[in-house]
């Protein structure tokens, strides 16, 4: 356990100092800060555009960090032979790999938190989308109900109305905070896939495979919906009026079943409309992401334990 902790700290420090990490972080921060200018292209819903644009920037750059650093975190160690000294210390290979992976996860959390803070400050300066919190005035969104239950717009408006109180401070609305959490889970998840691929193939191919998995995982549920038979009720009977090719349907269904569904981590629409996410949905999606990540990491560990490092 101690070795894993040291590994995490070492790995985090190394990733934090890497050029690729800085480049992505700085570029994302520029985009988030620039979201104000993008929002000015619209006369209505400028806040929504800012949120959409910034969430996209935070998400995509964390995914890039996950993929590109995930594919190189162990691969580069082996290629540059810096792993030789580390792994010949009295540490188990699993400990080494866990340290490297969790160090990367810590770097992803670090970058997401920084990006979310900058995003928060941009929203604070623009005074858009932030929620006033008044001390001793009860829960901030006490009147609001889940977006997936009966959402009460009237209560919601009341809850988000800025009071004239001297000690008011502002926070991000719940769906934006949850979106930040989902971005972390999604990025760590894809980095686990990139790490796994990097153990069996080259760094470039591992990155390409991870990008493909991410892309397919984002569209697979929509594809699956598209190939579902179209049914109509004609004269009281359910009749299939249109059905895609059976082979195509099976392939799409297989991909949908086997590959992870990344689209569930994208709640930018809910965030843009300030719809609260119910705790059940948050819990289910977190468990989904974490279970998949753990599974991928266990496979990586099994492969790494048997790998000849030369």
């Amino acid at each position, binding site marked *: 356990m*101690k*070795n894993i902790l040291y590994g995490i*700290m070492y790995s985090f420090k190394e990733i934090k100092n*890497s050029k690729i990490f800085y480049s992505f972080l700085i570029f994302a921060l520029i985009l988030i800060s620039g979201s104000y200018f993008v929002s000015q292209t619209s006369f209505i819903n400028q806040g929504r555009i800012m949120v959409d644009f910034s969430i996209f920037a935070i998400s995509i750059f964390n995914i890039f960090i996950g993929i590109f650093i995930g594919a190189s975190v162990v691969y580069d160690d082996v290629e540059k032979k*810096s792993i030789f*000294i580390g792994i*010949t*210390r*009295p540490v188990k290979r699993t400990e080494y790999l866990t340290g490297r992976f969790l160090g990367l996860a810590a770097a992803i959390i670090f970058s997401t938190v920084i990006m979310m803070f900058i995003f928060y400050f941009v929203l604070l300066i623009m005074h858009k989308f932030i929620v006033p919190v008044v001390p001793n005035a009860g829960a901030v969104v006490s009147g609001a109900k889940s977006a997936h239950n009966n959402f009460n717009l009237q209560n919601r408006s009341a809850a988000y109305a800025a009071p004239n109180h001297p000690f008011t401070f502002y926070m991000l609305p719940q769906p934006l905070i949850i979106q930040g959490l989902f971005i972390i889970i999604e990025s760590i998840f894809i980095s686990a896939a990139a790490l796994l691929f990097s153990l069996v193939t080259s760094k470039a191919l591992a990155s390409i495979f991870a990008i493909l998995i991410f892309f397919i995982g984002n569209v697979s549920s929509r594809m699956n919906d598209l190939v579902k038979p179209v049914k109509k009720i004609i004269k009281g009977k359910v009749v299939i009026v249109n059905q895609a090719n059976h082979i195509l349907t099976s392939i799409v269904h297989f991909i949908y079943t086997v590959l992870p569904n990344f689209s569930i981590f994208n709640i930018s629409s809910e965030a843009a409309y300030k719809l609260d996410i119910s705790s059940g949905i948050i819990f289910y999606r977190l468990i989904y992401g974490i279970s998949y990540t753990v599974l991928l990491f266990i496979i990586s560990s099994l492969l790494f334990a048997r790998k*000849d490092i030369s």
Partner: protein
Amino acid sequence: MIEIKNVTKYFRVGFFGTRKNAVEDLSLDIDGGKVTGFFGPNGAGKSTTIKMIVGLIKASKGSIKINGYDSFDYRARLKLGYLPENPSFPRGLKGIEIINYYAKLLNKKINKNEIYDALKLAGIFYAKNTQAHKYSKGMTQRLALAVSIIGDPEILIFDEPLSGLDPIGRKEFKDIIFKLKERKKTIFFSSHVLADSKELCDRIAVLVNGRLIKNENLENIEKEAAVYAEEKKEDRLSGEYNTPLEVYLYDLMLKNRKN
């Protein structure tokens, strides 16, 4: 201390995964408190053998035990320090940060003074606050040496420790090995430079084409070399090699090479 028994290592090469033996039926015991030189031409299988000993690669057949533990078991490396050939370290970290991290991975408490002593012995103390990727090859080699000797391990395994070093660096490195030898460390090092043999070793093992062709202590092998020189009556000492031992080892490798 280190027991290598009937070890074979093959790699799959080419499209059809043809088996190619890198090491063949190697048996070797490395005694405690002695310096064993592992000599052989390029591609003989020296680095592969060393990587099997330190647990980087797994033997296809046979067994390697260090202090009774299988070489793949992390406990085998509790008292082992390893200096790889052409070592490298991650970018962006200072020398002191790197050695601190590796010191923490040893299952014992290492204080600051021990770390400084290792850095001083390796001659890299002055650059401890410089980022390791800015080091020269010699400096990187020294930092790797400092990492390998931290925690005062009983067994030290050096893979081509003198390769790529300038004459001054070689001399200083040899002095460090002598110091470690005085401390009765078990040192196993590989080299293809025959001149290192007499100076440093108590025992010499020669590997050619993955097969161990000689494993003797220095005295015996020197006697054999003297007899060989007498038989050949050929004066080659003024050429590439300066001692009968070097000539003997050179001819031994040449005779056993496949092509």
